């Protein structure tokens, strides 16, 4: 019996969705995964080079294109390699087998006598004059994968597992036009949107004269319902008009998030859908009860560039260019809001700046599409303003995580409850979420029903809320808060950051309670050998010494997680010092991501995750005060070059294991390791992120 097809291949079984042989010596590989700065296309090229026995130089990777590329939903959740990469490997293994069969037919020999080297067919080691391209016209790829072919054994892999320089990096280092922001189409018009402040807000007045004065050049004001945009040939004029328009358009039915609502505790008072998971409650009798609560505020993706989208509606056909994470879900949502036949829309991915989740990219594309429909024949380029991105991008929700453990006589947990208050982590268009511009159209779509990422996909607010430790009975209770003050959606790691912070800080508190060293305590309640290996490895890397004295102002902490409890394993140790502020000195990280395609690429991602998480934990919170008041880099500061610690990362190479998603694995462990190190340094625990100066002072005063 054939092996079941990997999910994305099962969804897109036709082999010509994955590969084409366009001209002699060239191969095009198609993937639904898109480049977000994580280097995924380079990894896909490595996979293709190995499975097809080709030099990387022969490969062109085409990705994120609703005309040609496979539909793999979103490039998100550290799933590209774990699922998309395996699907691509299987598709290409089948293609390779088809070519070998055809070559055997042409050469009147057995396929087992044949081998492939850089696309050429060899028979018992001798050249046959045949190659992929001589055979291509006779090999029908418009057929479905069967699962009959087997992927290469690990021992035969050459490109997979070797460091490979990123294919996209040279163009970026030489300042070439690679980003969607750099695209130019003949006749292109620049546009800025005057954002509807909130759903249901209606335009009261538009002072067009004031807007034109600010533009200092010709601009056109376009209105459709409560969707208002400014268009012009000069980007300078349009940008100035867009900024000024905020003060020259008045709205009715305006609601704005308040300072009280920015606090995680506000969530406790709100209507919620209760979602229980795991074991029934147990009788606590005779067991010590240990309870702690940890919180975090709202975070922004804070992509370095504001979002951008281009669109052209011509001859009944809408073409959209976007840097979003899922061209197919965007395609479906655009068809709905624009009331177009799906067959009359094409969506192409073009690189943007790093997104780290659901930022404004989909919305900017929808803005461009809405305007393009009003201006047939005219290519429209929308670029959000900096302030617009900060205020209107979906935020990752504030969270409260209450951990309740029942302990045995030795201080080990025998029962664990993780109670979570959080709005949804998923309002992507593909999950029923609305495109922002659609809310301003004459016929706005309804509010999506309360919803979060299903457990089968790793959960949203519940992600990593289930500890991997040996605890006989465990449960989660998620209060899905249904009325958030701002739109919330996916940011790198989703609920894992808060859940791992909470449970790993609590594990440290339990270790202290039991009078044990945090590393030893973890190992004493962990049986998964791969989990033990990363914890032991990072302790060795950091020369962890048990029971180093706390409260000296300098401290060390550890954090561990297996992302989603099914992707990569990672343990992180942080060394820092605390006076009025926290200074990070050194971070060590050991990670097991199974079979690694591009080790340097994975290390780059792990390191990026550590630094981004450090920034979240030390500095970041979106503030509200009659509106979102974190609207630029001064009101939403992130970690600077001079604040970045030294980082050492080692991969535990388990290449006989399947590849495990690694891009998001370090976030939670880093957050927890910082929390634990701060507690060690201060001799006092801070359970609220971010770990600000005020909270350090408050913790010291309390002690």
């Amino acid at each position, binding site marked *: 019996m054939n092996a079941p097809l990997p999910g994305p291949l099962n969804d897109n079984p036709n082999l010509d969705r994955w590969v084409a042989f366009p001209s002699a010596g060239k191969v095009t590989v198609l993937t639904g995964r898109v480049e977000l700065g994580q280097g995924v296309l380079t990894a896909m090229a490595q996979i293709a080079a190995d499975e097809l026995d080709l030099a990387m130089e022969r490969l062109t990777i085409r990705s994120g294109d609703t005309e040609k590329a496979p539909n793999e939903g979103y490039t998100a959740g550290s799933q590209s390699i774990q699922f998309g990469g395996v699907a691509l490997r299987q598709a290409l293994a089948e293609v390779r087998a088809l070519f070998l069969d055809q070559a055997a037919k042409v050469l009147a020999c057995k396929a087992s006598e044949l081998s492939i080297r850089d696309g050429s067919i060899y028979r018992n080691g001798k050249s046959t004059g045949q190659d992929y391209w001589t055979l291509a016209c006779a090999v029908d790829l418009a057929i479905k994968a069967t699962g009959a072919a087997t992927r290469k054994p690990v021992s035969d892999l050459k490109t997979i597992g070797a460091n490979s*320089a990123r294919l996209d*990096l040279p163009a970026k280092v030489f300042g070439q036009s690679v*980003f969607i922001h750099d695209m130019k189409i003949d006749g292109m018009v620049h546009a800025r949107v005057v954002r509807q402040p909130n759903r249901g807000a209606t335009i009261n007045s538009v002072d067009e004269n004031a807007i034109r004065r600010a533009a200092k050049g010709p601009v056109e004001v376009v209105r459709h319902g409560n969707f208002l945009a400014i268009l012009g040939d000069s980007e300078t004029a349009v940008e100035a008009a867009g900024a000024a328009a905020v003060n020259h358009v008045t709205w009715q039915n305006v609601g704005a998030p308040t300072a009280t609502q920015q606090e995680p505790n506000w969530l406790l008072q709100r209507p919620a859908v209760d979602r229980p998971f795991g074991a029934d409650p147990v009788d606590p009798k005779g067991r010590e009860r240990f309870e702690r609560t940890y919180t975090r505020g709202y975070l922004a993706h804070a992509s370095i560039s504001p979002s951008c989208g281009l669109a052209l509606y011509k001859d009944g056909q809408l073409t959209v260019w976007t840097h979003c994470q899922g061209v197919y879900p965007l395609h479906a949502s655009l068809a709905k809001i624009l009331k177009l036949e799906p067959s009359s829309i094409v969506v192409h991915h073009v690189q943007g*700046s*790093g997104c780290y989740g659901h930022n404004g990219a989909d919305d900017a594309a929808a803005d461009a599409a809405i305007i393009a429909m009003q201006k047939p024949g005219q290519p429209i380029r929308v670029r959000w303003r900096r302030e617009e991105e900060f205020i209107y991008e979906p935020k990752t929700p504030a969270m409260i995580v209450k951990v309740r453990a029942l302990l045995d006589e030795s201080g080990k947990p025998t029962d664990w409850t993780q109670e979570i208050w959080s709005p949804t982590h998923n309002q992507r268009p593909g999950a029923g979420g609305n495109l922002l511009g659609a809310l301003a159209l004459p016929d706005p779509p309804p509010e999506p029903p309360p919803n979060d990422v299903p457990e089968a996909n790793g959960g949203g607010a519940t992600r990593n809320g289930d500890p991997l430790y040996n605890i006989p009975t465990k449960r989660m209770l998620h209060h899905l808060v249904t009325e958030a003050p701002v739109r919330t959606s996916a940011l790198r790691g989703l609920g894992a950051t808060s859940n791992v912070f909470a449970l790993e800080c609590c594990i440290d508190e339990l270790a202290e309670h039991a009078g044990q060293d945090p590393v030893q305590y973890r190992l004493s309640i962990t049986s998964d050998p791969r989990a033990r290996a990363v914890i032991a490895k990072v302790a060795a890397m950091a020369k962890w010494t048990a029971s180093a004295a706390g409260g000296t102002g300098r401290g060390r902490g550890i954090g561990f997680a297996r992302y989603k409890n099914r992707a990569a394993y990672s343990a992180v140790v942080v060394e820092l010092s605390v006076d009025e502020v926290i200074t990070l000195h050194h971070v060590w990280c050991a990670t097991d991501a199974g079979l690694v395609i591009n080790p340097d690429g994975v290390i*780059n991602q792990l390191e*990026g995750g550590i630094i981004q998480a450090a920034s979240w934990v030390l500095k970041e919170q979106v503030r509200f005060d009659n509106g979102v008041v974190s609207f630029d880099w001064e009101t939403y500061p992130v*970690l600077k*070059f001079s604040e970045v610690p*030294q980082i050492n990362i080692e991969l535990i190479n388990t290449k006989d294991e399947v590849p495990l998603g690694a891009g998001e694995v370090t976030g939670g462990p880093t957050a927890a390791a910082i929390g634990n190190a701060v507690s060690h340094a201060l001799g006092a625990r801070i359970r609220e992120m971010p770990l600000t100066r005020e909270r350090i002072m408050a913790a010291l005063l309390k002690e």
Partner: protein
Amino acid sequence: MPKTFDFSVNGKAVSVSLDDEDTPLLDVLRNELGLMGTRFGCGLEQCGCCMVLIDGAPEKCCTKPAWSIAGKQIVTVEGLGSAAHPHPLQQAFLDDQAGQCGYCLSGILISAKALLDKNPKPSRTEIAQALDGNICRCGSHNRIMRAVEKAAAVMRAGAAR
């Protein structure tokens, strides 16, 4: 009436005719001269994506009015080097894979160039301080600082020959 401004970009004399003399240099580079390497990040002189050299000094150009650059010498990332002839900084960034999304890199390369022009052997602390005006959101900081150190060493060796 459009006004004409003369200055030089990457060693070439250019003349730009503008209706609005306050047009930011960034818009002039990208939209008038087609030099897309200098990126828009914030329009507030906060993030450093638009860093260029103006008469040798690193400056954010997203709000720098065109009238203020008449007669000046501008260097953008395109002026550092090319794929055929990379600047040692660009080569070091590729060698160390110093970047993720790469959006911030143009500005960072310019800040690094300005640093090395003044200080051929900067310490890690001096590199960090020189780059504090640039934001990298992906977390490539350590690779970037390592690449700057390596480029500095290559440039010193080149100068010593």
